[in-house]
Structure formats: C-alpha cells, structure tokens
C-alpha cells in the first residue's frame, strides 16, 4: 500500500502547482465492485474539480455512481469488494490513492469531512452527541476531555442547536431529525476541513427543515471558505446553493455546467429529462414528465451511450459509439453526440 515515492510529510503547503491545481480534483476515476454475478462498474472515468469556497452539486439517480465517487474520495469504500483500477484523486496536488492508510486517516475528518444522509443511523446510538463531537478534538488534537466538551458545546451553538450546554450530554435518539443532522454537521466541521462532502444531507428530512439545513451549510461555507461537494438527486435543493453542477449517469459524468446555465437549457437529454420532471406551478393539472425506462444495470451496461435505451433523441451512432465529454465552453461540457441539437431544442 505504501508508496515510497510519496512524501511522508502530509500534503506540503507548496505543492508547486497550487496556482493552477484546484483544491480537489477527481481525474478519470474508475471504481468497480466484484459481485457473485460479475464485476459491477459503478464509476467509469469520472473527473471533476472543486475550488475553495465553491459548491459543486453532483446530481444523479440511485446507482449513478455519485455516492461511490464520494466514498472513494473519503477512502471509506470497502475494498474488497470495491476496487479502484484507474484514476487519481488529487487533494492539494497529492494523489490520495497513493497514500498509506495511516496518512489517509490523517486527512479524513480533518481536511476532508463528510455528512451522511440519515443522521440517526450515522450517529452512534450508545454515545452522547457531545462525546461524538468532542472525540474529534480528543483524538485528532489531543485535547483534554473538558476542553473538548467545551469545543463541542461551541460547535453545537454554531450550528444553532438550542440550549447546547444542556443538550451536550443527550443521546442522538433524543433529538429531532433536523437537530440530528445539525449535530452531524457540527461534527464534520469541527476541525475546519477544506472540503466538505454532503451526501444527500436533506433527503431524510421534511421540506421546511431541508431549507434550514441547506441555509446552514451555505452559511458555514461562506464563513470558512471551504469547498463543498453536494450529492443529491433533488434539483430543487441545488439551485440556491450550488455554483456548478455535474450530472452523473451510469457511472459517468454526462453534463458539466455552471448552475444558471443548466437551468436555462440542458446540453444532455438526461439533464433535460430531469429538469422537465420537476413539478411546476404553471404546469398544474398536466401530467408530470417522467424519464421512461430504468437506470442501467451496472453488471451489463448498454453499448454506446449508457443513456441510449431511455433517450427520446436516440440516433444510430448512440447505440454503437460511446460519446466523449464534448467541451461546449470553458465551463460547460456534455457527453452527448448531439449536444448542439439538445441545447438549441432542435433534437429529435
């Protein structure tokens, strides 16, 4: 595992290319899972980049590989059955995949932190929330119990948990869903990470609470200038907080775009389908659009473009040729042979 060519000093501040190199760059990442039925290719050459203070929303349905990519960045995939045959994950210029497990666990939690979907199951039921937050300071910073608990109360205040001082010794089950997610957030930002990965942070919450949590995340990000990867299948959540969007389908990125461009017009039929399936007030009474068909089987991917069996604009070459990620502008790209037609509405 240990690669002798990697500097044992963790991530030197001047890695040379810092000016051009983004904070976090995923480059041609492949992840596959060995199963009884064969090899499931969950991620097939995903690349994206994140700068400090920026929010990247990764959008896609279940099985699109968005969470697996995030888990690969965190280094919390179970390997085996998972395998990373190809690709790089560069954090401040250092390829995380080349680091030893000990070096990676120094980055996990301290420099790259993660929030999970269901805070009830993601928090340990047998320890108090204060203990779980304070643990970050005690283990990583060697703080005394008392100082660490004081920090925990401070953090609970910061994520606006009422009466933090009284509640620091409560257990996760004694909190409401929204409050639990706030505790999860407090834990993840405890050591001021540079990158925060939020994996569907609001999916398990009701709508009003969703908005509050997104607001809190956006605010914390502004204060600390961290980069955030927001994984979601909900286009509604994305619009207000994201700077750019990466749409994933079948383990690939099918469209990259600044958030406002994508809401104006999609450059990939899948993105177009997603946008059209958002309920809108002015469409009241009409049937809601749904993308027909099922997500691709990772064990048996369609030939050519993975989306072709469901694509309303399918042409013959879509079945045979895998489309490359075409650059549309400096900030925008689409993995569709007919992106021009999709973009100006003349496709199909």
């Amino acid at each position, binding site marked *: 595992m240990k690669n002798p060519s990697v500097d044992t000093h963790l991530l030197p501040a001047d890695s040379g290319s810092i000016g051009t190199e983004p904070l976090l760059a995923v480059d041609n990442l492949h992840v596959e899972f060995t199963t009884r039925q064969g090899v499931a290719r969950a991620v097939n050459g995903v690349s994206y980049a994140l700068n400090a203070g920026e929010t990247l929303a990764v959008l896609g349905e279940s099985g699109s590989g968005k969470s697996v990519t995030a888990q690969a960045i965190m280094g919390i995939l179970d390997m085996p059955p998972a395998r990373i045959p190809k690709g790089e994950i560069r954090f401040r210029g250092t390829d995380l995949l080349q680091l030893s497990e000990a070096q990676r666990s120094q980055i996990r*939690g*301290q420099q790259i932190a993660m929030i999970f979907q269901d805070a009830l199951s993601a928090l*340990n039921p047998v320890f108090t929330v204060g203990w779980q937050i304070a643990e970050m300071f005690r283990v990583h910073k060697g703080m005394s119990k008392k100082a660490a608990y004081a920090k925990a109360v401070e953090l609970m205040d910061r994520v606006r948990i009422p009466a933090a001082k009284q509640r620091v010794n409560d257990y996760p*089950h004694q909190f409401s869903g929204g409050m639990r997610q706030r505790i999860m957030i407090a834990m993840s930002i405890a050591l001021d990470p540079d990158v925060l990965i939020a994996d569907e942070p609001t999916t398990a919450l009701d709508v009003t609470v969703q908005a509050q949590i997104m607001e809190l995340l956006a605010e914390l990000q502004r204060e600390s200038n961290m980069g955030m990867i927001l994984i979601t299948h909900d286009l509604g959540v994305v619009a207000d907080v994201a700077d750019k969007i990466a749409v994933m389908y079948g383990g690939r990125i099918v469209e990259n775009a600044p958030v406002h461009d994508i809401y104006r017009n999609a450059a990939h039929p899948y993105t177009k389908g997603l946008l059209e399936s958002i309920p809108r007030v002015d469409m009241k009474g009409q049937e809601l659009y749904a993308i027909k068909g099922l997500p691709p089987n990772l064990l048996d991917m369609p030939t050519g473009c993975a989306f072709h069996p469901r694509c309303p604009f399918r042409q013959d070459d879509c079945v045979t040729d895998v489309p490359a990620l075409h650059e549309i502008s400096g900030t925008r790209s689409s993995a569709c042979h007919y992106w021009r037609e999709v973009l100006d509405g003349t496709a199909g």
Partner: protein
Amino acid sequence: MGRYVVRRLLQAIPVLLGTTFLIFTLVYWLPGDPIQALAGDRAVDPVFRATMREMFHLDEPLVVQYGYYIQGILSGDFGTTFRGLPVSTIFEGKFQITLNLAMMALVIEAIVGIGLGLIAALRRGKAADTAILAFTLLLVSIPTLVSGFVLQLVLGLQLKTSTGIDFFPVAGTSEGWRSYLLPGIVLAGTSIAYLTRLTRTSLMETLRADYVRTAVAKGMPRRRVLGRHALRNSLIPLVTYLGADLGTLMSGAVITETIFNLNGIGRQLVDSVYLSENSVVVGIVTVLVLIFIAANLIVDLLYAVLDPRIRYE
C-alpha cells in the same frame, strides 16, 4: 429505575408460583410410593405407612398439598425429607458448589467465546475464521462425557506426569477456585460454541452499520473504531445470551458434577427425583427459578447501561 426493579420483582411472584406448582404436580404424578422407596424391597409396616402419609399430607388432594408447601416456603421452611432431614440442611454447601461451577463456566465462556467470535469476525473469510467455525462445530459435537474424561486424563494426569505441572485438579473441591477449572471448561463447551458464533454475527453486523462508517470518515484509528464504536454496540445481544445461560449452566451441571465428583445441586436433584423426595426437588427448582429471575433482571438492567435508548420508568 427503582420502581422498575420493584415491578420486576413483583412480576417474579406469579412466575415462581407457576413454576413451583408445575414441578410439584409433575413430582406428584411420578409413579411409585415414596414411603415404600424408603424401605427398598422389604414390606412396610402399615401403621408406619399411615403415620407417614398423615405427616406428609400424602392423602390430601394435590392443591392442598401444594398449599402446605407454599405455606412452609413463605415462613422460610423448605420442609423435611421423608427420612426426617430438613431440606435446608441438604442444600447446605451444594448450591454454593454449583454456583461456583456455573460462574467459572460463565467466565470461561465469556472470555473464550467473545474472544474467538471477535477474531472470527475481524478475519472474516480467512483461515482463522474458518478454523474457529470448525472448532465450534467440534465443540458442539463432543459429548460432555468424552470431553470430561479426556481433559481429566490429558490436563489432569498426563500433564502432571510428563511435565510436573500440577495445576488442574481432576476431582473434588479441595483446591479452591482451581478445582473448578476443568469442570468449568467442560460445562462451558457447548455454550462457548454458541457464544462464538453469536459474537461473530453480532460484530459483523455492527461493522456494517452506518455509525461505524461515520467513525472511519471522522478519521478515527481502526483500533478505536473497533474497540469503542463497534464493540459496545455488538455486546448488547451477547449480554442477553450470557444472562440466560447462567440458569442453563446451573441446571445442566449434573453430568459434569458427576464426572468431577463435585457434590453440587445437580446430582442432588437427580438423586431426589429417583427417591421421589418431593420437597427437595421442588425446593431446588424454586431456588433455581429465583436465580434465573435474578439473572434476567440483572441482564435487563445491564441493557440500560449499554444502550441508552432503553430507559425503565
């Protein structure tokens, strides 16, 4: 918490009445005349027989006999045997021996069972895991009679004659806690196998839990993830098993006590059943039920300590 304990103790009363009545009835229905059993093959003097039947209320209906028995129990009297000995003197020392044996077995079981289970879970699918699973199969398959004598021979005798190490007494209780080592191992055998498998499953399940993934994502060292985050959660089902097993160990000690010549309650129970010593059998069962109830209560209270989601009001 206090009110919960009181309520649980009150609940024990109907349980105790039910179990003692059941045992009392079963012994009542046993074939044979206990008075005749006193005399063996010889004829019994009719006057003596009548006096004895009168004294022990043997001609009364079942429910009345049971009433007399409970009346005695409530005043702290376990009754007398047909031979005229107070039952409490028969108990003397014997419960202690069986309890010592069961406790020794429980400790061995907990250490070996949980230890092996943890190793198996952490080495899942590897050679150590397979070996441990095969070992548990072996443990369940060997009858107590075989394991008892083999251990006596190998650890008790051959070890002493070949190396001079005299650490495992083969019989009796004269060597203090060491006397219980070999019988403890034998008695714990099957339970070790079950506990190993239970621990393995429990830890493997816990390791898949979201909160373990969270601990890893927090950058916690592997040792801490396992020892603090996973272990405590996987202990919860094991405590139930261990608590319930104490009763099983105590009542299942008969063969082990016989092999190792321990004068415990298991042998007394079997002897008394043969002799139709009604009051002794029911007395032993009563005490066993009490121990069972106490063990279960302790388990339930431990639950609340291990799992804060459980609160007793």
